[in-house]
């Protein structure tokens, strides 16, 4: 039964619409497949870069640990070891028939050396983990460190601490103190700076640490990823869930900003 009520034009328009929608849907499926693969490829590249970066941080952490061990070994060998040997030599001179004057002299010398050994041991242990850090926290330890550097007379130090008695988590405090030690050490050794500035502020639950020196600075592009020291700082910061941001340029000194969320401290 043919009624001829449908014009050829309307059929053609309908067919064009159907074919158009079909092509569009097929194109959408193809686009999805291609685009999804491209995104995954980019993700794979990003993941590989992230893994390489993590590997670099780990290598830096291990290298720093080895350097620290060598330093402790050197300190023990050069300071404590040599002083103990000297004490041994003095004490060997003690004979049953030694004169009382000689005995007294040996005793005095030995006691002097033992005092020096005690002082050096205190210094070494203080460097490893300052008692003030354990007892009074990061801010007190940081202030103490800055104070000692300032008193040494070589450099002007500006320290700004937070007035609140609020403390970070234990791991965060140690990590941040090590970061400060590393930064101060770098400034003293390499920066040729006349002053450095340390600032610690609580903003809500976020702790903001800022370090700035007026040294010679460096070009971040020529120093590979900021060198071992900055890698170590990055490694320590990321381990305690902090965020590190630093900038430097030749003649412009170094500026380091670290933010730590106290939510992480609760999990310590």
């Amino acid at each position: 039964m043919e009624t001829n009520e449908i014009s050829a034009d309307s059929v053609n328009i309908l067919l064009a619409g159907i074919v158009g929608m079909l092509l569009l849907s097929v194109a959408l499926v193809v686009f999805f497949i291609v685009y999804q693969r491209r995104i995954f490829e980019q993700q794979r590249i990003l993941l590989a870069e992230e893994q390489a970066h993590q590997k670099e941080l780990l290598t830096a952490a291990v290298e720093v640990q080895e350097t620290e061990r060598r330093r402790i070994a050197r300190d023990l060998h050069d300071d404590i070891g040599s002083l103990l040997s000297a004490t041994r030599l003095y004490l060997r001179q003690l004979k049953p028939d030694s004169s009382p004057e000689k005995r007294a002299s040996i005793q005095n010398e030995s006691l002097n050396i033992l005092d020096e050994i005690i002082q050096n041991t205190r210094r070494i242990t203080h460097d490893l983990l300052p008692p003030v850090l354990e007892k009074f926290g990061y801010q007190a330890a940081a202030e103490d460190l800055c104070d000692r550097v300032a008193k040494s007379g070589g450099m002007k130090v500006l320290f700004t601490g937070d007035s609140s008695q609020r403390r970070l988590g234990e791991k965060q405090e140690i990590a941040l103190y090590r970061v400060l030690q590393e930064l101060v050490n770098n400034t003293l050794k390499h920066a040729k700076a006349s002053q450095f500035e340390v600032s610690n502020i609580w903003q809500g639950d976020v702790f903001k640490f800022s370090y700035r020196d007026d040294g010679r600075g460096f070009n971040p592009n020529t120093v590979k990823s900021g060198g071992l020291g900055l890698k170590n700082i990055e490694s320590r910061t990321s381990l305690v869930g902090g965020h590190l941001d630093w900038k430097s340029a030749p003649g412009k000194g170094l500026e380091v900003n670290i933010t730590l969320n106290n939510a992480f401290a609760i999990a310590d």
Partner: protein
Amino acid sequence: MGIVIMILDTQFHHILPMIDLLDSNFWNAQFQSIFHWSMLIPIAVGIYSLRSHNTEQRKLFFYVVTSFVFEYFSQLKWAIRQFNPETNAPFYHFFTPVLFIFFVGIYQQFLKDFTSFRVDYFLAIFFILFSLWNAILGDGILNFPGLSLGLYAFLMMLIAVSFFLKLLTALTVERLEKEPMFWINSGVLIYFSGNFLLWLTMNYLLKDMNVSYSIFKISIILGLLLNILLSIAFVCRPKAVLLPPTRNQTPHGD
């Protein structure tokens, strides 16, 4: 002058209008029955892989079995003779919301993740109400449910496109060919995109049985394609996602 779709006919080396191609002898009388038989393919594959079905595959299996039963029931002469004039349109008024609910069930997890609002229930209720309205006041119970099927196709296209967008943003599936929902979604998008305008205009096309029969062959081809893609969806083995152990558990237990 209207738009004329041209398709290259390689057998005769000249260009034919598409409607002529659809009318040509290539599509013989057995064409529709091929489609009906093809509905058995996903059922057979579904039964073959029954033991390894995940939630979506299980729901899909119920869908293919139900749509097969519905399709055959609507073609029964006895069923058609129940109405005056003889028609199977009332069955489609009933089947359409049922099949839509099946699809909503298949996409349920995606729809749940998409929004906290229970959009699956909303869609199902909304579509049932619309189908009721269409059967009573819209197309009418004795006419082809063009509006319901048009809305069905539109909603399914919307869900399918949203699903692809979600996959692109979430990036949870890397091996698409191993993911049943990818094949289901591709089939759904292509099938409903091709049928959308056809179903919407079917009541108009039915004024000329020859033209409507010719154009309806597109729907049959798309149905064949859908059956193939749904069959592939049954044989896919999605990669197991290994969840990290919880804090209180060790590989040896608590």
